[in-house]
């Protein structure tokens, strides 16, 4: 039967935002182009003022040259950014960007100077032929300012892309927390547990109270799990014990569960409720749909510096669970596993591993291997 998690698509739209940052597309819209142009023109005025002060003071003439050269360079760079492949955050990758700016600087200088010459009926190029040092004197400032202005735009683009990326990451994290919460507060489990509790209140008040305590601990852990990055393995096992106690009341003789945590491993830090979905899957897909009793074992062991966490069951096994998951009424399963992989990848990269295999005597064996470390913020 579908759980609440069906309402969330199994493939959350994470990482799509990272692959094509929204900023990249926006860099080339008309608004940006217009704003950049104005900024370049203003920079050109400042450059003309500086250059004319240092040289002989022909501000008007210098301004025309500065605008023609500056805007030409800018146009070449914008075209280049638009046309060149492998853009990241609006700029071509690595040295392509530098080549673009250098090329645009020279091309823009030639074009801008030629246009300005045409305006004033003059030829700078003849002058440079007679006096090559003058070329250096005029091109030098162009190259310097070109480098500065391009660098400034590049950094601004980068900052905007970073902001977009951070926003996307925050969005992803919120979504992940929400779906974790939804998968753990599965309504079917909750209402069945409450129904059992209701039955016990009249029949066996003491057992009802114990069950309620387990439910409280389970709910508190589930709600806290989305706020904590890590907690000690001993806590993780305590939460699993709560969950198993609830399931024990519900399933009675059909469930034979055990947990085994060597005391010296209790302080190792693990992401909260990492094992929980595995235990839940073992029951939901392995033991609950199977006729007759079944076993479930949760163990922790150390293999060198690697923590090995294992959930084994003697349920129906992977194939039957997968076949059932394909049926329309069972949609939404399999989501917990993707989430475990993702959480491990985020926290430990390739150092952590999650495998799901057929058990030695039927059933399923889920194993998580991750670097053991005792640090934990608490």
């Amino acid at each position, binding site marked *: *039967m*579908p759980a*609440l998690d*069906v*309402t969330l*698509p*199994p493939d959350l739209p994470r990482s799509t935002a990272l692959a094509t940052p929204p900023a990249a597309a926006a860099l080339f819209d008309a608004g940006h182009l217009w704003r950049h142009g104005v900024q370049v023109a203003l920079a050109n005025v400042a450059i003309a003022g500086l250059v004319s002060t240092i040289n002989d003071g022909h501000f008007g003439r210098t301004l025309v040259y500065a605008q023609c050269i500056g805007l030409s360079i800018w146009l070449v760079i914008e075209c280049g950014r638009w046309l060149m492949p492998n853009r990241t955050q609006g700029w071509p990758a690595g040295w392509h960007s530098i080549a673009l700016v250098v090329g645009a600087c020279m091309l823009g200088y030639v074009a801008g100077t030629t246009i300005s010459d045409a305006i004033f009926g003059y030829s700078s190029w003849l002058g440079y032929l007679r006096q090559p040092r003058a070329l250096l004197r005029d091109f030098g400032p162009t190259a310097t300012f070109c480098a500065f202005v391009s660098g400034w735009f590049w950094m601004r683009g980068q900052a905007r892309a970073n902001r977009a990326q951070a926003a996307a990451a925050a969005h992803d994290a919120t979504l992940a927390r929400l779906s974790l919460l939804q998968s753990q507060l599965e*309504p*079917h489990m*909750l*209402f*069945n547990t*409450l*129904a*059992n*509790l*209701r*039955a*016990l209140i*009249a*029949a066996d008040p003491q057992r009802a109270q114990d069950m309620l305590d387990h439910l409280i601990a389970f709910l508190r852990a589930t709600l806290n799990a989305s706020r904590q990055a890590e907690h000690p393995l001993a806590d993780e096992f305590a939460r699993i014990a709560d969950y198993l106690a609830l399931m024990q*009341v*519900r*399933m*009675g*003789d*059909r469930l034979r569960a055990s947990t085994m945590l060597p005391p010296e491993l209790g302080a190792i830090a693990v992401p909260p409720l990492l094992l929980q979905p595995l235990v839940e899957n073992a029951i939901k897909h392995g033991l*609950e*749909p*199977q*006729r*007759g009793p079944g076993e479930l074992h949760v163990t922790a062991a150390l293999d060198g510096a690697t923590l090995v966490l294992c959930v084994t069951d003697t349920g129906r096994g992977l194939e039957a669970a997968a*076949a059932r998951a*394909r*049926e*329309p*009424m069972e*949609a*939404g399963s399999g989501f917990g596993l993707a989430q475990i992989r993702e959480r491990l990848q985020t926290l430990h990269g390739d150092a952590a591993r999650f495998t799901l295999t057929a058990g030695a005597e039927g059933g399923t064996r889920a194993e998580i291997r991750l670097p053991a470390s005792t640090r934990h913020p608490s």
Partner: protein
Amino acid sequence: MTTALIAEDEPLLAQALRAELARAWPELQLLDSAVDGDDAVERALAGRPDIVFLDIRMPGRSGLEAAEAIVEEWPANAAALPLIVFVTAYDQYAMQAFERAAVDYLQKPVQPARLAACCARLKDMIALRAAAQQAPASSAAPGDAALLGRLRTLLGAPPETTRAASQDDAAAPPLTILQASIGATLHMIPVGEVIYFEATDKYVRVVTATREALIRISLRELLPRLSAERFWQIHRGTVVRADAIATATRDDSGKVFLTLRERPERLVASRLHAHLFRGM
């Protein structure tokens, strides 16, 4: 004496429902509870209760599958079909389906007031049936047609919402070719050549005019990928190509026997699906 069967895999909940029913309807005689879907079918067919309370999520057969099997295997000469009440903790989509099919259902934890209303309705239905049986003119069980209709709605149309939620399903195109292994060889069988499909334990048997093969897919997975106009489900385990049917003969029990154009065997259409064959 009215009898009822409870099918619920969680022992405490089965006990609690027994206790609540004993309070709400003291005269109701309860059979021993069934612990899973298969057990429910066995106990229902053996005990022939008037009412069956079926949990939806059970080991083995689900409550819906158990209901289907009970109705199909219910002896024709016996009393009317049992009234079925589904019990569920939280199944949004199943409940929508129940609403559409106008089947009675209970939500866990079962509230006494809700249970009392349910019992009142069941009593009314049983009284109506008894009255109908007194009148000799009417046919055996007038309530059955309504029950069959409801169950058909429930089983025939998987909730569209769940269908849309699993994207694989929505994307799965109609089948045109079946790849079936016969021994070590893979046979390509055009769907149009198939005369009927028959569910076996883990496989579906594909039968054409000249050969038979097995495919590893459940009938429930297969059905949505077949054209509903060309392929008719006539039994919970049988789907037949409509234009391969030669004749249909109805017997006293409401079952319909089919003969085929290109195969010698006869197929049975269950009471649940017999409405497909009514004559024009």
